[in-house]
C-alpha cells in the first residue's frame, strides 16, 4: 500500500513537472489612421519617355511586439528563412518582422536589375545588381530596424524589423494581430508603423494564462 501511494505521488509529481506552464495570447487590432504614401519616383526630367507602371507599397501594415520580454525569450533562436520579393519596382512585403538569426531572400522578379542595399546600423549590406530569376540573401543577426533600398530605383524601400525574441506579430490586411504563448507577466507592448513606435501600452498576462485583448491606434 505504501509503495502504491509512493508511486502515485511520484507520478503526480512527474505529471506536474511535465505539464506546460500556462501562457497567454495577446490579440487585437491596430487602427492605422495616418496615411503614409508610397514613395514617389524622382521627377524623371532627364528621361526620354514615361516610366513604366509600378506597384505601390502596402504601407498599412503595423508590427505589434513586446518591448519587454521574459529573459529566456532572448535565448530561443530558431533559424528561419523568409522572403522579400522585388516585384514591379516594389519590395513585397513592404514590412517584414523576423527574429534575429533569420535569413531573408531577396529574389528579383522584374525584367530590370535591382540592387538591394542597406546602410542601417543594425545591418549594412549591398547585394549588388542581379537580374530576374536570381536571388541573394542576407542573414539578420542583430535586433533593430533595417531600412532596405534599391540603389537603382530610389523609390523602392522597405523595412525589416529584427527582434531578439519571438513575441511580435505583423498585422493582417484588416489590422488584426495575434501573439501566442506569452508567459504570464506584465509587459510593455508597442505598435510600430512606418519608421517609428506610434503607440505603447502596458498590460498583464494573468498567471493562469488566457486571451488578452488590446487594440492600438496609430495616428
Amino acid at each position, binding site marked *: 500500500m505504501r509503495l502504491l501511494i509512493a508511486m502515485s505521488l511520484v507520478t503526480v509529481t512527474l505529471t506536474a513537472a511535465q505539464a506546460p506552464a500556462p501562457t497567454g495570447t495577446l490579440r487585437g487590432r491596430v487602427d492605422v489612421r495616418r496615411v503614409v504614401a508610397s514613395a514617389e519616383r*524622382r521627377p524623371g526630367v*532627364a528621361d526620354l519617355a514615361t516610366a513604366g507602371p509600378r506597384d505601390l507599397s502596402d504601407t498599412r501594415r503595423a508590427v505589434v511586439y513586446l*518591448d519587454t520580454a521574459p529573459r529566456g525569450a532572448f535565448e530561443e533562436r530558431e533559424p528561419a528563412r523568409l522572403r522579400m520579393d522585388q516585384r514591379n519596382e516594389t519590395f513585397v512585403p513592404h514590412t517584414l518582422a523576423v527574429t534575429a538569426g533569420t535569413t531573408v531572400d531577396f529574389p528579383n522578379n522584374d525584367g530590370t536589375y535591382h540592387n538591394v542595399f542597406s546602410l542601417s546600423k543594425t545591418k549594412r549590406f*549591398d547585394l549588388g545588381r542581379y537580374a530576374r530569376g536570381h536571388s541573394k540573401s542576407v542573414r539578420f543577426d542583430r535586433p533593430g*530596424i533595417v531600412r532596405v533600398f534599391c540603389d537603382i530605383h530610389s523609390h523602392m524601400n522597405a523595412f525589416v524589423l529584427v527582434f531578439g525574441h519571438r513575441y*511580435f506579430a505583423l498585422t493582417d490586411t484588416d489590422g488584426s494581430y495575434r501573439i501566442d504563448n506569452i508567459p504570464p507577466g506584465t509587459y510593455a507592448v508597442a505598435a510600430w508603423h512606418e519608421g517609428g513606435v506610434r503607440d505603447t501600452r502596458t498590460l498583464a498576462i494573468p498567471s493562469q494564462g488566457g486571451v488578452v485583448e488590446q487594440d492600438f491606434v496609430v495616428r
Partner: protein
Amino acid sequence: MTSLRALRFCGPPEPWRRRKLPGAFAAWLVVAGSAFAQGLPSEPVSIAGGRVVLGGEAAVSVAPPDPGYFNYTDYEHNTLREIRLGLTASVRASSRLAFLGEVRTENFNRVSPFALYARVRPFPARRLDIQIGRIPPTFGAFTRRAYGHDNPLIGYPLAYQYLTSLRADAVPASADELLRMRARGWQPSYSIGNPAPAPGLPLVTAFNWDTGVQVSTGWRAIDVTGAVTNGSASNPRVSDDNAGKQIAVRAAITPVTGLVVGSSFARGQFLSRRVLSIVNSGHDDRFVQRAHGVDLEYSRDHWLVRADAVLSQWRLPEFSSPPTHGTLTAFAGSVEGRYTFLPGAYAAARLEHLTFDRVAGPTLTATWDAPVSRVEVGGGYYLQRNVVARLSYQHNTRSGGRITRDGLMAAQLLYWF
C-alpha cells in the same frame, strides 16, 4: 522574470558612420554632410496625391584652381569648384500629359530653367512619347546622366565638358588664326563674327538643353528617339539663331539585363546668324555640326562599366588662305568603371582622350586644337542613402597651351531627394 529590451529604436534609421578619409577636408565633408542633411527630405516631395512631385539636388565641389582651364564649362564655371543647386518638378495632368521642369543655379549667379517641357503619351498603353519644349538631349547617354549621383566621379567626361577652340558666333579667317587658339577653348577669339573673347564649344554639351520636339518609342529591347531642335549638339539653344534645325536620332538596345548599347547621330547648323551674314548666307545648310556617338554600359553585381565615343565634325566657311580645312573633326573616347567594395563605399576611375584632326598652317601643321588626356580616380562614401561625400584626383595632360599638365584633387558633397 527580468524585462529586457527587445528592440531599440534609437537614433536615425540611417546612422552616420564616421571613418577616417584622407585629408582634413574629407573629415569636414563628413561632418558638414551630417549636419547638412539632417532635417532635409530624403525622398521626393509629393503633393496633390502624387500629381505634383518635387525633387532636388545640391552639390558643393571644392578643388584648387585650374589654371589650365581643363574643367571649365560653357557657363564659364569650373565643374570642380562650384555650388550647384537644382530643383526638379513633374506635374501629371492626366495619364496622357505631364509637364516637367528643372531650374538650376551654379554658384548662385543666376537661376536658369534647365528644362521645361510637356510630355505627351497619346496612347497610355503604348511606348510612344512626345516631348515638346526645352527637352532632354537625344544624343548620347551621358548628357542625360549629368546629375551628380549618376556620375561616379566629380569631373565630367571631356567629350561633354571640355571647351574646344571653336565658337558658334565667331570663326577664324584662316588656318593660322585657328591654330593660334589651340588650347584656348576657355576664351578663344576670332576675327570673323563676334570679336570679343568667349568660351568655345564642347563636342556635345551636358550643361545646356536644346529646345524642340522629341519623339521616343520602343519595341521589346529596342528604344528609338528622334528630335528636331533649335541648336546643335555642341550649342543647344532656347531660341533659334540661324534658321537651321538640328536633327538628332538615338537607338539603344538592351540585349540582356544590364547591358545597354546605344548609337547616336546629330546634325545641325551651328554657326550664328551673325557669322552666316558675313558669309553672305542667311541660311546655309553647309555649316553644320555632325556628331556620331556610340555608348555602352554593362553592370553586374558590384560592377558598373561604361564606354563612350563621340566623333564630331564642324564645317566652317573658308575665307582666306590657308583655309581652315573646311571640316574640322574631333574625337573623344572614354572608359569608366565603378566598383562598390563595401556597403556605401565605392571606387571609380575614368580614362579618356580627346583628339583633333590636323590642319596645315603657313608654318605649322598641327591638330586644330590641342589633344587632351585625362585620368580621374576617386571614390565615394554614402553618409546616408542620399548624401555622398566624394574625393577624386584628376590628372590632365595636353599637347599644347601654356599649361600642358595639371593634377587636381577635388572633394564634393552631394545631396539629393
